[in-house]
Each structure stands twice: as structure tokens, then as C-alpha cells.
């Protein structure tokens, strides 16, 4: 659908380390415009770390991250600020601001970055909260929400400015299957209709099959990518045992309702 075929994110030879200990080494991959890209891997293998590198929170020890063709890792302050406007992030813990209500949390980026009139902002906030099914919790404080509601509110906040790329760190953790499936449909809708690119860290096999156009799998031992491709292909033709055990841990009852890439 989008004419621009250039990858929206391109990671080249990225190495990330905490202190002297490398978590990721020489990782390279690309995310295409408008696709839903899933990062898989066991706990502690560096998925969140990779995501922090992609959103510029964490400076990689070597290598670079390109967003929309611009080098994010070596950007000056202006470019950096401009690139940040293109991304929305949901952190693994939600990271809502505890002193603000849910609707104030979602409204904050709108207040800071748009010239919309107050009534418009209210309508936009309501629409984002409706997307994640949180209308009734608009005036609650984060402390009064359940774990799954915090996640959904954080997703609404990530979507507030209609970013081109949305990063979600384990969006379905803590959600019941029905809400989780609803969320998957919302993500697919946003991606198809608005051309939003999603980069998602998740473990939910069901979600992976429904959502992912492509995925990569990280591994703590090799500190890099051990497999990449469409989830159905990885399931049917796993390149190694790790991938095989990941995809076959559950009996294959999941209907692989894989989206055809447009």
C-alpha cells in the first residue's frame, strides 16, 4: 500500500552491553513500512534491551539504528526530537504517570505537541481510550487500575500522537484471552488502515500467528538472531531446535489466521 519501499527501521551490526557484559552482538535486521514485526526470545535474552536501543533510550556500544533512513544513534538534538515524534512506546511496566488520571496521561502528548482545541483533544483522547476499551476508566488514577488496564492505558498513550511506529513491550501479558484477541484486532486494524508499523515483543503464540508479518527470534547464548521469517514458516520449517521447541511447545491447535502481507 505505501509507495515508500525503504525500510522504516534498519538495524546494522548493533552491539549492546551493560558494563562489560554484552547482551546483543552484531545484530542486523530491517523492519518494513506498515508491517507488524515481532521480536521473540526467551526471558532475559535482550528483547527489552533491543527495544531500548531502537527507541534511542539506550546508546548501543557499536552499530547503528536507522529510522526512516536517518541515523537515530548518531542524530543531533533536532533530528533526535523529530524522530522521537514518529514513535510511540509502551513499556513493559506501563510507566503511566502516577499523579495523573488515565485520560490526562493520554492527553499529555497532545497538550505538548499539538495545537488542537480542548474539545478536539477530549474527543481524540476518548477515541484512543475507546480503541483499547478503557472509556470507563478515564478518570481513574493508575494506582486504581488492574495490571492489564495499565497496559491498555499505556498503549492508548503510545498511540496519542498517531506515531508512524509503535513499540509494544509485551502488550498481552496480563490480559485475558478475549481482551488480548481484541487488542490484536485493534493492532491489525491500525496497521492496515493507518499504515502504522508495529514492533512488538511478545510470547503469546496465538498473538504471533494472528499478528506477525515477520518475526525474529533472539537467543541469550548466541547473543543474536537465531531465526527470522514469517511465523508460519518458522513453525513448519524450524531452522534449529530452539525455534522448534518454541513454536511446538504448545499443541498446534491455534488456527493460523495469518494475515497475508498486502
Amino acid at each position, binding site marked *: 500500500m505505501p509507495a515508500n519501499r525503504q525500510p522504516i527501521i534498519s538495524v546494522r551490526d548493533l552491539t549492546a552491553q551493560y558494563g562489560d557484559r554484552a547482551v546483543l552482538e552484531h545484530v542486523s535486521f530491517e523492519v518494513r513500512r506498515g508491517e507488524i514485526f515481532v521480536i521473540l526470545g526467551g526471558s532475559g535474552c535482550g528483547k527489552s534491551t533491543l527495544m531500548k536501543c531502537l527507541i534511542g533510550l539506550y546508546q548501543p556500544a557499536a552499530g547503528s539504528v536507522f529510522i526512516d533512513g536517518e541515523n537515530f544513534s548518531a542524530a543531533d538534538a533536532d533530528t533526535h526530537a523529530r524522530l522521537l515524534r514518529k514513535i510511540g512506546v509502551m513499556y513493559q511496566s506501563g510507566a503511566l504517570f*502516577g499523579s495523573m488520571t488515565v485520560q490526562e496521561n493520554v492527553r499529555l502528548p497532545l497538550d505538548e505537541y499539538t495545537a488542537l482545541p480542548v474539545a478536539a483533544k477530549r474527543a481524540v483522547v476518548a477515541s484512543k481510550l475507546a480503541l483499547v476499551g478503557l472509556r470507563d476508566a478515564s478518570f481513574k488514577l493508575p494506582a486504581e487500575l488492574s495490571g492489564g488496564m495499565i497496559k491498555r492505558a499505556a498503549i492508548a498513550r503510545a498511540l496519542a500522537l498517531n506515531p508512524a511506529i509503535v513499540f509494544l513491550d509485551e502488550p498481552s501479558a496480563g490480559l485475558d484471552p478475549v481482551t488480548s484477541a481484541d487488542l490484536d484486532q485493534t493492532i491489525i486494524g491500525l496497521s492496515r488502515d493507518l499504515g502504522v508499523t508495529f514492533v512488538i515483543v511478545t510470547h503469546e503464540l496465538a498473538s504471533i500467528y494472528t499478528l506477525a508479518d515477520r518475526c525474529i527470534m533472539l537467543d541469550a547464548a548466541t547473543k543474536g538472531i537465531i531465526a527470522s521469517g514469517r511465523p508460519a514458516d518458522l513453525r513448519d520449517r524450524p531452522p534449529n531446535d530452539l525455534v522448534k521447541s518454541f513454536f511446538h511447545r504448545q499443541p498446534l491447535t491455534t488456527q493460523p489466521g495469518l494475515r497475508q502481507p498486502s
Partner: protein
Amino acid sequence: MPAATASIISESRGLVVNVTGVLTADGVAAVWPVLDKIAAAAGDVLVRAGEVTACDSTGAVFLRELERVTVSGGRRFQLDGLRAEFARTLELFPLDAIVPPPPTPRRQPGLIVTVGEKTCEIVADLRNQVVFLGQLTVALWQVLRRPRQLHWKKILQIFHTAAVDGLPIVGLISLLTGLIISSQSVGPLRAYGADIHVIYLVALIMFRELGPIMTAILVAGRTGSAFAAEIGTMKVNEELDALKTMGLDPVRFLVVERVIAGCWALPLLTVYAMLLGVGASFIVMLSGGYSLPALYAELTDYCTVSDVVEGLLKACFFGVLVTGVGCLRGIQTRAGAAAVGAATTRAVVSSIVLIIASDCVFTLISTTLRDAASLPF
């Protein structure tokens, strides 16, 4: 030129609204005022959107709002010519999704209700303090019977941050207080030819009152607040609940160590404060021409060990009080980051109030006892 435009043409059957351009945040901000005009006008609305070249979810919200404003007035709404891809965007946002829910009304309680609620709060808080005191006593008693259970290393660590790291600030404040009181009281006492009694005056104040009180207030600000913040953060992160479900009593596990460290740290800091305060008065008098032996004789003639002991007893009590209140306020923390800040504030304020209040009681008791024993002053 704005990114988007919206113009209204009145026709016999109603209004025709021409929307063109880029319907993203900037464009929507430019065309939003048209909504008021449509709400004010009458007649059915036809929106021609064939020249909309881009429409994100903010644009979709605008189009829905157009529809809502129209149909809420009982009029008919029609949208024409919107590109198929934008129409799909619009479907993501059903009409009722853009209506913000009504804010939950906050009841404004009257004066009597407020006074009543506050009173209940204070009574409940007093009750909590008594309950906490009981829990603490039980926990301390259990620990004293089996002292090996204590993490002495942790206690030493807490003692270090509370006492050793507090030496500079306690020293500075005591030295300055000593200097100020001595230099200010030399004048009035000299009028009676009694200026050497400055030593007596300062020593009495530092030993009995200011030494313990000032140190306790400083420890409340440095250490009590830190305890409240630390335990408060643990509470917010559900770590206290985790302790409880493991069958561990938070009071036993977190408070006892801190209180034990505090009831040692405070007397020792107080001795240090007393020394520096009296030392300061020596400095002032020495610079006024008095000899060291004369000053020393003045000190030993008038002050007794009982003065120092009284101060140290107070300091022990304040140590338990300040650390206990810090921990209690931490445990009472409600949810959220702001609650941790509130807990810290409450810890310091309650500590200071309780220090001053209990010091009054102490002083009352000690003067009564002195009277009974017919000791001077």
C-alpha cells in the same frame, strides 16, 4: 495556508460542508471551529470529503465529531466521496467512541463533614500508632529473646548511614548553636558580672534539651524520611505484600533493625552534639580572656552527670521515636509515586511534633523530680 480547509455553503435543503486537505493534527486544529458553526446552524448536513488527501485517526475523530454534532440535533448527516482507505480508518472509531465519558462528579463536603472526617482520621491515626507501638514491642521482644535472628550486618549498615554519615551536619549545627547562644548570652550575664556562667548556661541547655532535640530533628530529616521513602517505595511495589504472603512480618523484618540502629545512633550523635556545643562556648569564653582551668571548674562545679544522663535517655527515646515513625509512615503509604512523597513529609512532620511534645513531658517530669529531691534547678 492551512493544511486543511472546511467551508460551509447553505442550500435550501440544508448545509453542504466542503472538507479538503490533510486531516491530521495540524489540519484538524485549523478546521475544528467549523463544528461550532454547524452546531449553531439548522438543517441537514452533507459533507463532501472527496478532496481529503490524508486522514489519520485525528482526522477520523473530526469527521465523527461532525456527524455527532449534526445527529445530536436531530438532523440528518451524510458523508460523500471519502476515499475507501480513509473510510476504513473511520470505521475504527465508531460514533460513540469519541464522546468523552462525563467526569465523575466530586462531592464537595460541607464544613461539618470535613471537620468530622478529619477528626476520625486523626483518631484512626492515633490508634494506628498505638497498634504499631504494640507490634513493634512484640517484635522487639521476640528478637531480644533470639538475638541471633537479627541481621547485625544490616543493622551496622543502617547505623553507619544514620550516625557516621550524619556527623558533619550534626557537628556543624551544634557548633553554630553553641557559638550563637554563648556570644548572645555573654552580654546580659556581664550586666550582673556573671559572664563566666555562660558555660553553665550553654552546658545545661545542650545537655538537657538542645543536644537531644536538635540531633533528633536532624535525624528525622535525614534518616526518618529516608526510611519512609524506602519502605513506602517497597509498599508501592507490593514488596510488603510479598513479605506478608511469605509469612514474614514487615514490622519484624524491616522495622526492628532500623529501630535498633536508631536507638544507638541517636545517643551517640547526641554526645557528639553536646561536646561540640559546649566546646563552642569554651571557644567564645577563651577568646574573651578566660583561662581554660577556670572554665573547666565552672563546668564541673555546676553540671552533674545526671544532666548528661537525662539528655541521653531522651536521645534513646527520640531514636526509637524518629525511626519508628519513619517506618510507620512508610508502611502506611498508599499507592503511587506521589504517595511516597506524602509519606516522607508525614514522617518528618510527625517526628518533629512528637519530639517536641514528648520533650515537654520529659522536662515536666524531670523538674518535678528535681523539686521533690530539692535539687537546685
